[in-house]
């Protein structure tokens, strides 16, 4: 008689336990915690299904992890891949339309650390994760964070592919092109990409030299004389910034300009080169191709 009762109560307890574990909402076992670049730890009950991205590189990272379909809204400047252009745009990355973001009912908003909109959105109860990849190492780190956030464990593999792509681009360069001295102009000014910038890192990995040393910072505004003195072997510049470069006083004598060793990038290519995102391998490949093409062969 007692045996039967015990078996019954055991069974009841077991049944309740099973029911609880099945029916409990994704409790602490399945909760996600991510510490963003502000040092804020954001907790989500489950992997977010509706994501708004306010930074083009973050948009690309989400899509690189094959989670493009989770994006419900992007900022005005996110333009890759082509599918995100059809998504609702909520304004600029730094000053999005709060109303538009809220209307999309996102589970999480990905944005840059320098955006003020984060506080407003958080005050309205929206989860905000601030990440801003600026260096090669950042891309890996942010990729893994986004992967963790989205509940996807593909991040490491995706990174390995990107990294391998960059190495391959470096290896594709003939040894003669290795010591090419490059001047990368980012904007009229002239603003150059130094060694410590994202582009500078890519160039370093490709094995070429940057005439702008790291101590000048990532994007210094240079004295034009400095570039003439340094006499780069190769000039890289956006085609719209190339306007009038040869008319700059003293620049027409520069060997790279005289011999037309100039790599011109159109707007889309420039976007790809500048963004610290998953396309850095494509960017490296683009630069490598041009370097191999235009560099001096002794």
């Amino acid at each position, binding site marked *: 008689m007692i045996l039967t009762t015990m078996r019954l109560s055991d069974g009841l307890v077991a049944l309740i336990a099973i029911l609880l574990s099945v029916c409990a909402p994704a409790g602490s076992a399945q909760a996600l915690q991510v510490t963003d670049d502000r040092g804020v730890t954001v907790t989500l009950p489950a992997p977010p299904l509706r994501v708004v991205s306010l930074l083009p590189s973050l948009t690309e990272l989400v899509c690189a992890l094959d989670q493009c379909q989770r994006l419900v809204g992007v900022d005005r400047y996110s333009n890759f891949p082509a599918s995100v252009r059809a998504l609702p745009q909520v304004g600029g990355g730094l000053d999005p339309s709060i109303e538009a973001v809220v209307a999309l009912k996102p589970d999480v908003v990905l944005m840059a650390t320098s955006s003020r909109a984060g506080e407003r959105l958080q005050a309205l109860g929206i989860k905000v994760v601030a990440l801003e990849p600026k260096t090669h190492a950042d891309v890996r780190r942010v990729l893994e964070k986004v992967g963790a956030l989205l509940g996807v464990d593909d991040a490491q593999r995706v990174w390995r592919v990107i990294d391998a792509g960059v190495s391959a681009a470096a290896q594709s360069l003939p040894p003669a092109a290795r010591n090419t001295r490059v001047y990368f102009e980012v*904007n009229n000014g002239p603003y150059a990409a130094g060694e410590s910038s994202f582009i500078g890192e890519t160039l370093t990995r490709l094995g070429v030299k940057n005439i702008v040393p790291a101590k000048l910072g990532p994007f210094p505004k240079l004295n034009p004389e400095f570039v003439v003195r340094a006499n780069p072997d190769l000039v890289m510049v956006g085609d719209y910034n190339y306007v009038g470069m040869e008319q700059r*006083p003293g620049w027409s004598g520069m060997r790279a300009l005289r011999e037309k060793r100039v790599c011109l990038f159109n707007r889309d290519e420039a976007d790809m080169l500048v963004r610290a995102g998953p396309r850095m391998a494509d960017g490296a490949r683009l630069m490598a191709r041009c370097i191999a093409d235009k560099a001096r062969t002794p």
Partner: protein
Amino acid sequence: MMNQRASAIGLVLLLIAAVLALVGAGVGSTGFEGVLHAMDEPVALQILWDIRLPRTLGAWVAGALLGLAGAVAQGLFRNPLADPYLLGSASGASLGVALSLVLFGVSPFATQWLLRLGLTAGAFAGAVAGVLLTLTLARGVQHTLRLLLAGVIVGVVLGAAKELIMLARPDFLQSMQSFMLGSTGYVGWSACNIMLGTWMLCMAVAWALSPVLDGLALGEATAASLGLPLARLRRGLVAVLALATGTAVAQTGLVAFVGLAAPHLVRSVVKTSHGRLILLSSLMGGALLMAADILARWVIAPQELPVGVLTAVLGGGYLLWLMHRRVTARGLL
């Protein structure tokens, strides 16, 4: 004896300019390097001749143009707060540069012309267009208050248009900022010569028309009673203003404060008629911009500071000190 004092100050300013020219020729991408030192290597000599010398002299001429324009503006509007950018030239030039940047690549025709003329043509055309727009809005030069108001309106509207373009194309933000804050980075000999020629023309016309500014200082009705053809002369002065400002802005960007401060600095040491004021203001503006440019290139070489920031610091600092001295001397406040 005021005339003697004025002449003395003019000579001092020219002397300062000569000294600064020598210093400026020595400030290269690694800070100060003596000119003699450059005589050894041909590359360095070429850099000195092609880049540093025209930049330094160009800074003087641009400053001279802005100082001239500032004195003319303050005389024309009888307002010591007037500056050369009042009639929409600054906002017009900015919009011109923005449109040039945007049009590049849109059509091969536009691209080809832009490659030939560069951004300077866009800036100049924009500056002149801005002034013409202001004149049209004010319906002529007769009413200074209307001119001022029209200038402010044009400035705001064209500025907003430029901001919209920047919003749509944020990749140009840095280039625009470089233009807005001013730089002599791309001033070569041809730019120098254009500015010099413009300066001589504007100086001659302004000198010839300066009696009308003196007459206007007595009041408009009095000036008219003295037989001065006010409308015609005002138009001439506005043309000088537009030409001088447009040329300077096209070559060195929007350098702030020189046009405003130079006439005040001159008036603080000598009181004189408008003709001499315009000349001295021009010389003062040249010295001011030259000094600021040298500092802009020197302080964090090989990086450069925007020269507009330094003109504000130098000119503004000196004016503040003057004000302080004047206030404590009179025991006011």
